[in-house]
């Protein structure tokens, strides 16, 4: 429970911090400080629980099915790190209170700082591999926010993103590694994993798993070859660097490596993989640090180097090396945090971190200088400071481990070389900033900072000193507990002491100290102190990162262009081709001729379809240049289709097909007016070879599609029918459906639900069409009255004024006749509506007949004339039709039957006799209304577009009598 509190507290603090006002620096600091101190105290209070190999555990089920639990586990090792993280966290908060300027939006800073602390504590205290990855990724995310805190700086943005991409990428590798590890062990429980070392090492997946985990670790701990992000993360505010890049985040990697050391170590792969990364980083970091001009740059490379040291120690595969590694993790955290703080002070008070510009600050800021000097001493491994102790252990282990392997002399050599570089860059760091003549051209006159900034770094330096002088009574016991919790009874005997006598490591230390000082002196003397790092300076990670970024975008863009297209034709081509391919694959072993008896051949049908096919092909050929002709041919093909339906006993289909076909043609004609004219010669010259090829390809596809479709059709037509559903419907239509026309009974009763959906589609489309056309913007050249009409109108007016009873022009006679048709059409439509249940017809056909009647009136009377006399309100019809249909369905609820159950009654009326009333009729009536409304709405809305012509409007403006609003009429 307490462990949970330790984790949750920082997150709660984070949320609270985010909600405080922007300028509440003090409140923020108090909040964050209180949280950090509380955490530290809570952790500290658990000492006796974890001492002597004790483990504190808290667990909740999270996703138990997958073995993912919330499991917090604290042993002495975790305890030590949790203490470190929360303690340094508290110091950093104090420091940041004074470091951050009043203009900085501190809620964001403290909020993410606390969140980071929580994530870090979570990583440390995780007892479940996956949960560990969760917190691990959270540290990456929060550190991204912290590094990018000053996001107005391009470098900050880049640095943050670089850090995020590298560490999250590593995190994904770690996740996979942990998944494999968990799969190997059969559990993600840390205890079980740590106990299963032999099984793990023996497993076939050990290699890939280890590589993945190591990649995760070295990305986080900025080890070669993923070290490059750390120097660029120095754009973060210095408190962030002091925390993340010394004590916390970068330590997570090596922390993890040490955590899993017992389970994973002891193979050649482990040794080579980790030692290579560690040793390379060790040297590379130290060498680069020597040539940095930015104080934080020096520290960043130094961190790479020191983490390399830790990594190398962990790779060495000896128990003592592990202890040394843990020890150095703590030491490094203390001196590096204080160095970062000192750097921050310098930056804060002088306005620069440039080693070249800075000089002689010991006069202006003696306390800072002392603190920095001591911390740098620890970094260099000067005796009596904590860094010295772990360095000695490192030297010793390099000899021990080296002797056990093929790289006998390499390791001590590397270690010594590293020592020389470390001393040199530490000396350079202090010398360039604090010694020499006082600098004159600094952005701000330097002076000591407020106490709040001094105290945290001073405390850390005191810790360095204490540990360095009396290790056995300070860190010693804690380290032993931690090491014991890692190694258990395997923990070797060792002694933390300042003086071990003159041993090889001591000699190496001396060489390093002397060599380092000499090397730095040499550089200064030669004026090379500020030169860019030889060889390495050309490897600019920032540029490389940018280049890679650009390359990714370009590459992806090229790829996306190659694999996507914003054009319609390739898409349709692919869809059709895919379907063909899929069908071809599935059809491989079918027989295309079945054995059902065929219908007797009829030459008339053949003739009919010769005509139909000619129409289809003609339409295909003419659709580009002779749209009108293509349209008439489409009409021909439609009629032949209709006749075919009639021929093969589908009267309802024939009726529907013909009515829909005609309405469609009318619709297309209405649309044709808005399409651009196309002249044959426009296109002829564009017949390039490529275009021909394209057409050949399309033709081949079309032929293939047609052939395939015909083949499948034939294959099915020659097989006996499956009458499962059909016989039920035919047998029950009259008795239970109350209708003789089985198709109609299916439509309004058996499968009335389909019809409900179908009319909904129609209603939706009408609505959409209407809405779209209200905002329609015609092409300029088609706005005006068509040429045909202008010429015709010049000769004789077709229509007259809206007040006229009949058109005054030549449309008079047609109008007389056509207006007589409307009532007739209405009657025919009623007829089809009412008898649909027993004979071909129904609401849909009836509705289309009625709608056509209306449309013909528009054709012979003109929009203005019709609408000045009649408001149709098609939208109303659509809505009421839908409601009627759905209401007919809901009627069944009253008798607690399912939706759309037919409810019928026989009513006796005076004079008329028995009348059969059924909800089915209401349903069909709904269909009827909706079809009228939708069809009229679509056609008339399209027709209304002609009103946009300025010529028409000019004529209309002259009208004195106000007319009804046609659009209102459409509602």
């Amino acid at each position, binding site marked *: 429970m307490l462990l949970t509190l330790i984790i949750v507290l920082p997150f709660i603090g984070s949320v609270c911090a985010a909600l405080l006002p922007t300028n509440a620096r003090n409140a923020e600091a108090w909040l964050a400080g209180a949280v950090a101190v509380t955490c530290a105290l809570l952790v500290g209070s658990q000492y006796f629980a974890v001492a002597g190999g004790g483990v504190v555990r808290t667990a909740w089920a999270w996703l138990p099915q997958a073995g993912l639990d919330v499991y917090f586990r604290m042993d002495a090792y975790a305890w030590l790190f949790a203490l470190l993280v929360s303690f340094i966290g508290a110091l950093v908060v104090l420091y940041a209170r004074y470091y951050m300027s009043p203009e900085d939006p501190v809620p964001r800073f403290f909020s993410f700082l606390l969140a980071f602390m929580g994530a870090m504590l979570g990583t440390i205290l995780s007892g479940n591999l996956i949960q560990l990855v969760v917190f691990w990724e959270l540290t990456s995310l929060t550190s991204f926010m912290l590094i990018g805190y000053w996001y107005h700086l391009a470098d900050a943005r880049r640095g943050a993103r670089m850090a995020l991409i590298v560490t999250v990428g590593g995190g994904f590798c770690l996740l996979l590694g942990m998944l494999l590890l968990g799969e190997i062990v059969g559990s993600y429980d840390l205890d079980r994993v740590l106990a299963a070392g032999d099984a793990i090492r023996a497993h076939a997946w050990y290699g890939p798993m280890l590589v993945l985990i190591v990649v995760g670790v070295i990305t986080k701990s900025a080890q070669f070859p993923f070290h490059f992000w750390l120097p660029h993360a120095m754009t973060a505010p210095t408190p962030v660097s002091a925390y993340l890049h010394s004590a916390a985040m970068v330590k997570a990697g090596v922390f993890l490596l040490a955590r899993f050391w017992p389970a994973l170590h002891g193979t050649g792969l482990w040794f080579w993989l980790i030692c290579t990364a560690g040793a390379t980083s060790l040297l590379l970091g130290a060498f680069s640090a020597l040539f940095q001009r930015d104080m934080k740059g020096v520290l960043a490379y130094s961190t790479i180097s020191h983490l390399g040291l830790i990594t190398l120690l962990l790779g060495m595969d000896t128990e003592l090396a592990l202890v040394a590694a843990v020890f150095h993790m703590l030491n490094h955290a203390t001196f590096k945090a204080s160095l970062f703080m000192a750097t921050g002070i310098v930056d804060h008070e002088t306005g620069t971190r440039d080693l070249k510009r800075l000089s002689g600050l010991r006069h202006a800021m003696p306390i800072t200088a002392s603190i920095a000097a001591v911390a740098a001493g620890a970094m260099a491994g000067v005796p009596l400071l904590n860094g010295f102790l772990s360095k000695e252990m490192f030297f010793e282990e390099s000899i021990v481990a080296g002797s056990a392997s093929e790289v006998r002399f390499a390791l001590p050599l590397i270690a010594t070389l590293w020592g020389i570089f470390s001393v040199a860059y530490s000396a350079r760091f202090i010398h360039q900033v604090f010694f020499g003549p006082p600098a004159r051209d600094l952005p701000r006159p330097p002076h000591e900072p407020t106490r709040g900034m001094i105290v945290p770094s001073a405390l850390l330096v005191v810790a360095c000193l204490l540990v360095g002088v009396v290790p056995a009574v300070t860190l010693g016991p804690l380290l032993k507990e931690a090491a014991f919790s890692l190694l258990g009874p395997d923990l070797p005997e060792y002694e933390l002491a300042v003086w071990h006598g003159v041993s090889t490591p001591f000699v190496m230390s001396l060489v390093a100290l002397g060599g380092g000082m000499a090397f730095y002196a040499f550089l200064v003397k030669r004026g090379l102190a500020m030169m860019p790092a030889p060889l390495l300076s050309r490897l600019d990670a920032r540029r490389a990162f940018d280049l890679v970024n650009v390359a990714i975008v370009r590459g992806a863009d090229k790829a996306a262009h190659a694999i996507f297209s914003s054009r319609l034709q390739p898409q349709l081509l692919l869809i059709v081709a895919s379907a063909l391919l899929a069908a071809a694959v599935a059809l491989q072993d079918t027989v295309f001729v079945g054995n059902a008896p065929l219908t007797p051949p009829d030459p008339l049908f053949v003739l009919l379809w010769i005509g139909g096919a000619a129409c289809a092909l003609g339409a295909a050929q003419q659709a580009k240049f002779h749209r009108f002709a293509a349209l008439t041919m489409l009409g021909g093909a439609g009629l032949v289709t209709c006749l075919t339906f009639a021929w093969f006993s589908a009267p309802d289909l024939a009726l529907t097909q013909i009515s829909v076909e005609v309405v469609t043609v009318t619709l297309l004609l209405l649309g044709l007016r808005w399409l651009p004219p196309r002249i044959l010669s426009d296109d002829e010259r564009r017949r390039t070879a490529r275009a021909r090829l394209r057409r050949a390809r399309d033709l081949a596809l079309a032929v293939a599609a047609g052939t395939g479709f015909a083949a499948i059709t034939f294959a099915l037509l020659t097989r006996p029918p499956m009458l499962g559903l059909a016989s039920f419907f035919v047998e029950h239509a009259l008795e239970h459906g109350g209708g003789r026309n089985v198709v109609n009974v299916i439509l309004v009763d058996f499968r009335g639900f389909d019809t409900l959906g179908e009319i909904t589609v129609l209603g939706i489309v009408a609505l959409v069409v209407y809405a779209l056309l209200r905002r329609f913007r015609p092409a300029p050249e088609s706005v005006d009255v068509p040429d*045909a009409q202008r*010429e*015709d109108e010049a*000769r004789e007016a077709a229509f007259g004024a809206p007040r006229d009873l009949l058109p005054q022009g*030549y449309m008079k*006679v*047609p109008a007389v*006749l*056509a207006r*007589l*048709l409307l009532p*007739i059409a209405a009657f025919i439509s009623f007829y089809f509506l009412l008898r649909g249940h027993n004979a071909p017809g129904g609401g849909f056909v009836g509705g289309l007949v009625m709608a056509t009647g209306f449309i013909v009136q528009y054709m*012979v009377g003109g929009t203005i004339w019709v609408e000045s006399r009649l408001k149709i309100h098609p939208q109303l019809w659509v809505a009421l039709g839908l409601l009627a249909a759905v209401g007919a369905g809901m009627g069944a609820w009253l008798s607690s039957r399912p939706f759309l159950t037919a409810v019928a009654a026989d009513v006796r009326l005076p004079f008329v006799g028995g009348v059969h009333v059924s909800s089915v009729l209401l349903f069909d009536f709904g269909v009827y209304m909706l079809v009228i409304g939708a069809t009229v709405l679509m056609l008339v809305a399209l027709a209304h577009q002609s009103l946009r012509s300025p010529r028409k409007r000019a004529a209309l403006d002259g009208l004195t009598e106000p007319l009804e609003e046609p659009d209102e009429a459409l509602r």
Partner: protein
Amino acid sequence: MTLADLPLWASLPASLLLVAGGLFTLIGSIGLVRLRDFYSRMHPPTMGATLGTGCMLLASMLVSAALLHRPVVHEILIAVFVVLTAPITAILLMRAARHRPRR
């Protein structure tokens, strides 16, 4: 009931009417192809629409009446409809032909 039930007094005239109707329709359609100018082509299809359809309607009425033993006259509706609508299209098409420039 099937067509075989049809008495001869009905089937003979019905057959004649049918063949005549079919021939009028066919001749009308042939005229549509054969005649040289549009105005002339306007005439023959009317044969199919009027006498062709008329004969078939009569035949239909005859057959239905003979089989159902009651007068069946609803075929008249089609005739009425054809007569009502034909002038409208004719007027529009003639006007188009006379005044629209060749496209």
